[in-house]
């Protein structure tokens, strides 16, 4: 079976002195929820950006469904960046129209239902909304696609616990079991129960790629405890 995501000797350096990602070899199969875990500056976001074609690898290659990042891969990948990337002037309605126009797999009805449930007026511009609400809107747009791969970069960072619960609930309830989901976070306790696999990255190198069950059995502790042990300062 061909992998959904395959990284072969993938490296990225921003400066000659330091590698942000170094010789990564990763295979991700369909139908899995993968936690991409590591401390700040470990290379998680760099890897995610390379999956989405926003950064060009220095060495190696990355394949999504057999394609290098490009038009074909972007049809299949739904990406939530770590930062607010939508223009603040845009209304929710215009964003829904935009996603519907450019993504064939965008389910507008599903998005409307989620927006209604949050009691957000679709005619409101993003600039009138709180940070948490903006993050929810971004997540709704991303999770309303019927993609093969969802890549969420720090989706629960910087929001209050109630918003965090909503985000996790939205991810689980809209996630297509046929698809895979890569979720990058520091807040492991909040998402540990939904993960199938974890990839631990330190200084741009992969420390561990294992199923959550296997890791817990082998180490006799939760993923969160294991993370604290591996990345202890």
């Amino acid at each position, binding site marked *: 079976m061909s992998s959904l995501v395959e990284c072969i000797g993938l490296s990225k350096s*921003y400066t000659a002195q330091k590698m942000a990602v170094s010789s990564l070899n990763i295979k991700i199969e369909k139908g899995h929820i993968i936690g991409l875990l590591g401390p700040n500056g470990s290379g998680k976001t760099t890897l995610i950006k390379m999956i989405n074609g*926003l*950064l*060009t690898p220095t060495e190696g290659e990355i394949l999504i469904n057999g394609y290098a990042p490009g*038009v074909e891969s*972007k049809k299949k990948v739904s990406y939530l960046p770590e930062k607010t990337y*939508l*223009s603040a002037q845009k209304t929710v309605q215009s964003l829904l129209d935009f996603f519907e126009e450019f993504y064939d797999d965008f389910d507008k009805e599903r998005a409307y239902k989620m927006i209604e449930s949050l009691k957000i007026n679709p005619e409101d511009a993003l600039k009138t909304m709180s940070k948490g609400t903006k993050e929810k809107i971004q997540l709704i747009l991303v999770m309303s696609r019927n993609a093969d791969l969802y890549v969420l970069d720090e989706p629960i960072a910087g929001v209050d616990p109630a918003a965090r619960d909503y985000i996790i609930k939205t991810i689980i309830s809209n996630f297509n079991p046929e698809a895979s989901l890569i979720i990058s976070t520091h807040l492991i306790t909040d998402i540990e129960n939904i993960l199938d696999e974890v990839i631990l990255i330190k200084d741009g190198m992969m420390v561990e790629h294992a199923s959550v069950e296997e890791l817990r059995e082998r180490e006799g502790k939760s993923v969160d405890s294991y993370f604290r042990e591996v990345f202890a300062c």
Partner: protein
Amino acid sequence: MLKKLIKYEWNECYKLIGLINLVVLIFSIIACIALSLLDFQGDNARTAFSMIFTMGYGVIYVTVLMAASFGVTLFIYIRFFKNLFSSEGYLMHTLPVKASELIISKLVVAYIIHFITSIVIVVCIGAIVLCIGANLTGDFSFVRQTINEIVSLELPADAIAWFVVYLVGVVITMLISPLFSALTGYFSLSVGQLFNKYKIVWGIGVYFLITFIVQIITTVFVVPISFSMSYSEAGVFISQSVQMMVSSGIMCVCVVVFYLVVNHIVSKKLNLE
């Protein structure tokens, strides 16, 4: 997808561009009304007032035209950078479209914007010239007289032929210069984003450098032509026609090279941090 991108780009741009052109139109209408009412042939005091008003308003009007032209160009550059190389780039570069479609959609809209702004400026200046002429002569008969004078000019046959070549060069330059202007900015900003730090500063530096290089190349090709021609009526036309064709040819080459470099950087060297 290209059509959708063009539509999206236009929707993002038309309001500000409409506003800039509206300001130009308002200033032009005020100028036309004032020029129709001013008295240039009355007593000394009225004529002096008319002259001072015309000069003062003329300075303001030229400033407005320059600001509009500069503003439009700057807007096109900022739009390109913001949409493709800032946080908005996370959305644009993850759309299932080719890099060339992203660039072409922006070029098409930049071209339309330049075209509309140029037409508005030319029409406004033309209207003001007509108003000045009508004020001085009492009616618009001077237009017919001027056309008659141009038509009745007796020029040598080869001078007319070269004048046609000159006009062709002017038309090509007019058609290609909006693309050249937009792509010079796109090229500079794209090269600037290859650097790890101070990307905008590098972009501005590349802009001045590339503008300087293009001017040097144009001068190197054009100056020898003007020295090699005779100073007869036909010689002047030939010289200017050849210069115009050469400079428009250099512009065409730059447009192709700039586009290829921008496309290569956006599709193969993107580093969105």
